């Protein structure tokens, strides 16, 4: 394919991925990789390298806004980044030691799980949890501002949350994704952190986690500008447009619709991996 055509096609695919990623809450990175490998026949290692760069760009853009709004909890983020960064390094080192077929299958499974998770209607638990002694010691409890005032919250089970974050970091390094879904599970469901704070803090953490594996990806040649550049610009643009459209669209309907599409893509990824075609 001529360079200009390749650039345009990749940019369009990445823009769509960014748009769908932000509308579903899945993130653009997790969608762009299967699109590149399945549609364009790009080697999965180039795809995950490019995807990781786009994930870091989107996260930095979003985190900048969240930091200003005071929604993200910097202490929770920093404490959990201890786990995600170590996990990310392990994942990135592992990525080059396992075959691309296995990578594709793992990718498919993770994508399938994320699609299922986002399609579920989220129950706003809102039940205050009892703070654990460790959370007290680490000053993880916080306050977040809502329209009606400030709501204090406590954090429970920091240790299991920390463990799950290591896994989230590892998957991020292995597959070049943000692992936002798993991060939110750890914070929202296990540690009892309010959903808004979980999402903001997760987004804030993704950049730092991503960088831990990106340095390794860069040295191993996973990040090639001809592909990483249009992917980064496309995903960034697509997710910015998505964020603008979000308040005006029937989100629950869209989520269910896209969950099916993403589910099919995930299955295809698994099948292609098993057939050894990736």
């Amino acid at each position, binding site marked *: 394919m001529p360079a200009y055509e390749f650039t345009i096609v990749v940019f369009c695919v990445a823009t769509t991925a960014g748009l769908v990623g932000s509308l579903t809450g899945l993130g653009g990175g997790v969608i762009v990789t299967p699109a590149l490998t399945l549609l364009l026949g790009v080697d999965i290692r180039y795809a995950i390298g490019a995807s990781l760069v786009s994930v870091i760009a989107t996260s930095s853009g979003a*985190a900048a806004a969240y930091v200003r709004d005071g929604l993200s909890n910097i202490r929770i983020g920093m404490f959990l980044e201890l786990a995600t960064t170590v996990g990310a390094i392990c994942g990135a080192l592992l990525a080059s030691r396992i075959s691309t077929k296995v990578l594709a299958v793992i990718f498919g499974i993770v994508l399938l799980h994320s699609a299922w998770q986002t399609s579920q209607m989220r129950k706003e638990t809102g039940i205050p949890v009892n703070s654990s002694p460790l959370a007290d010691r680490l000053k993880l409890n916080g306050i977040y501002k809502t329209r009606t005032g400030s709501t204090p919250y406590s954090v429970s089970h920091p240790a299991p949350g920390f463990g799950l974050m290591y896994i989230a970091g590892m998957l991020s390094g292995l597959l070049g994704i943000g692992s936002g879904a798993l991060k939110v599970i750890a914070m929202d469901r296990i540690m009892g952190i309010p959903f808004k704070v979980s999402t903001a803090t997760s987004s804030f953490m993704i950049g730092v986690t991503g960088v831990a594996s990106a340095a390794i990806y860069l*040295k191993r040649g996973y990040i090639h500008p001809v592909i990483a550049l249009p992917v980064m610009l496309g995903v960034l643009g697509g997710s910015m447009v998505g964020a603008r459209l979000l308040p005006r669209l029937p989100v629950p309907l869209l989520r269910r619709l896209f969950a099916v599409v993403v589910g099919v893509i995930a299955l295809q990824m698994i099948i292609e991996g098993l057939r050894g075609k990736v």
Partner: protein
Amino acid sequence: MDIQDKQLQQLISVTLRSGVLIAVILGLLGGVVFLSTHYGDAVSFGTFTGTQSLFASPKGIVHEAFQPQAQDTVNRGLAIAQIGIICLLLTPIIRVALSIVGFALERDGIYVVITAAVLATLTCSMLLH
């Protein structure tokens, strides 16, 4: 949260945005340099060449971008784009470093240690092969 914290959060916010902005600007610039002369080059990413890539080491990238006798605009354009990407990758690291300063100003010893450990982990990742 005290005022120092607010200012620091502003600084972190600005750092993160600048990283993205620099990556986009250098990316567009490098992309235009590359495509303006090599729009017809055949590209294919079906096979992985890995570390043979010119863009796998910061030293190689800077060399490609700045060597004066570079008639090879392919590499020059792509190297500029890659420098943009590396700037993007550096911003979260700067963010972590700024957070250490923030926690030190708040005299929060535990978090100075935790944040320094995160920074050390990131530094390790850069030294690994």
